[in-house]
């Protein structure tokens, strides 16, 4: 059935904040049952605002959405029963222990008594916090907090799980752990809606993704399809002071050249066959006596997809830099 195979469907979803900030500008989304759907975008793109709307925490200014078979505004209570949510800001009560927090969470979802204790033990095991279970969450490291938060979103075995930047601020090892957990949760049949600033993460985890920039979806599809649309290979020319337009003119028409994108001190040429193009490019630049720096060839990444869609790189998306960014905003 149509309704059961689409776990999330949004049409024209928009949110304008007081003061006229259009955080989300009429987006359409469709997430299939059982998939890991990536929602990729830079700081301030509108990822969290979208998640908050889909989770019933924030009413949309316009547009509508159904999540797990219920509409987010008129059937919010049904949505809440069926979803699990780990928001961007890890919401933990510092005075409780990890175990107490999970048991309370179980209780709020109607899982009480021995059943709640059993589920708590299972989840502590799943996220590797059995040892630390009886310590107050205040004493947990960032990664432990993230994992506890993830566990608390799972108490009632939700059919849809929302994860808002689940790995931001984590070290590489902890990121891998969270990835494994997301895969395991998804393997158990849970549909996952995951936001991220990391292209690598989207590439690694997601069956399909949408790229959001300034409140608008600028590209969507499977990672392969998105990369495929860009072209087969990307030849990057370091300009080293050479003029971009002039260099582009010098290279001129190239067999299999699909598009050229100038980005700061580099020129990216999306071509069918990188290896043979390099030779051709070098020959043409020599002929035109244009001095450039290193020339390299690579397979296109989602980064290139983002660049192509927005004209910008996903700046600051390196794991170690982005931990505190939303605080400053």
């Amino acid at each position: 059935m149509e309704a059961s195979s689409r776990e999330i469907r949004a049409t024209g979803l928009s949110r304008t904040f007081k003061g006229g900030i259009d955080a989300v500008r009429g987006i359409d989304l469709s997430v299939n049952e059982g998939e890991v759907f990536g929602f990729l975008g830079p700081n301030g793109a509108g990822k969290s605002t979208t998640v908050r709307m889909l989770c019933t925490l924030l009413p949309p200014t316009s547009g509508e959405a159904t999540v797990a078979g219920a509409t987010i505004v008129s059937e919010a209570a049904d949505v809440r029963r069926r979803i699990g949510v780990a928001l961007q800001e890890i919401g933990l009560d510092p005075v409780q222990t990890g175990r107490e927090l999970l048991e309370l969470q179980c209780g709020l979802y109607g899982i009480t008594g021995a059943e709640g204790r059993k589920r708590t033990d299972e989840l502590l095991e799943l996220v590797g916090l059995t040892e630390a279970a009886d310590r107050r969450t205040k004493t947990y490291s960032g990664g432990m907090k993230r994992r506890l938060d993830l566990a608390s979103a799972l108490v009632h075995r939700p059919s849809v799980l929302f994860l808002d930047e689940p790995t931001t601020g984590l070290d590489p090892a902890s990121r891998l752990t969270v990835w494994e957990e997301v895969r395991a949760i998804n393997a158990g049949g849970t549909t996952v809606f995951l936001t991220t600033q990391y292209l690598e993460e989207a590439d690694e985890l997601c069956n399909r993704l949408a790229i959001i920039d300034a409140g608008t979806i600028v590209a969507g599809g499977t990672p392969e399809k998105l990369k495929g649309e860009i072209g087969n290979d990307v030849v990057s020319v370091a300009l080293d002071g050479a003029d971009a337009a002039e260099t582009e003119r010098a290279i001129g028409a190239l067999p299999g050249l699909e598009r050229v994108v100038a980005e700061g001190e580099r020129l990216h040429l999306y071509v069918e066959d990188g290896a043979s193009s390099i030779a051709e490019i070098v020959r043409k630049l020599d002929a035109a006596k244009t001095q450039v720096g290193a020339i390299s060839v690579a397979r296109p990444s989602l980064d290139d997809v983002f660049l192509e869609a927005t004209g910008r790189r996903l700046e600051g998306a390196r794991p170690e830099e982005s931990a505190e960014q939303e605080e400053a905003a």
Partner: protein
Amino acid sequence: MTEVLLLGRRAVREVIRYPEATIPTLFIPLFFLAVNIGQVSETFPDTTPFLNGQGYAAFQLPVSLMFAVATATTGLALVTEIDNGYFDKLLVAPIKRTSIIIGRLGADLVRGIAASFVVVLAGLAFGVHIEAGIIGAIVLILLAAAFGVAYAGFGILVALKTRNVQATNTSFLLFFPLLFLTPNFVPFDRLTPVMETLARLNPVSYVIVGLRSLIIDGWVAKDLLIAIAVIAAMSVVLIGLSLRAIKTYDRN
């Protein structure tokens, strides 16, 4: 219902585990009790008519009780939770939003009873004799705690409306005029006309008068019923507004 109990238990646990949030709130009332008595017991010896044969401590005890129970603790705990994001986790759970508030108020009742008990014990140590007896002492403690619960509604309201820790913290200052524009040092008829008018307009005055009647005069139905009515009215208004605030939180 279960959710209210669970959330209430958590809030009580928070009180127990944060003694540094509760102990200072007890320091002020005990300090006032000791200092005021020390300073004015010569001026108002136990032959003073309005003391009915007791020391001045008996007259001050209700004021200290008010101080002990009317705190910004709950509002602060809530705004901290809003700030750190745990509040969102509760909002996204399939529970009635009002349970979050009712659970917290339940913890306020527990804390109010415990704090009032300590203050009454201190009063007894200062030689106060509760004219209405043991039952009177219990009613005294319960009424003080109920006042604390009503007052907590105000902190919760500020927390939900401002979502700002500083604002919620300073909202406590409002309590000073409410507590001092009252017959807190002397009865109504000993106040200057302006002060008397203000005090008679202040509902908290009647709570103090009611509690005081239990200590000094025994069972005075009129004073007690007015105090109960005032506490009930404050609860309806302040708790009512905070329940509405959480229902409409981020709803537009």
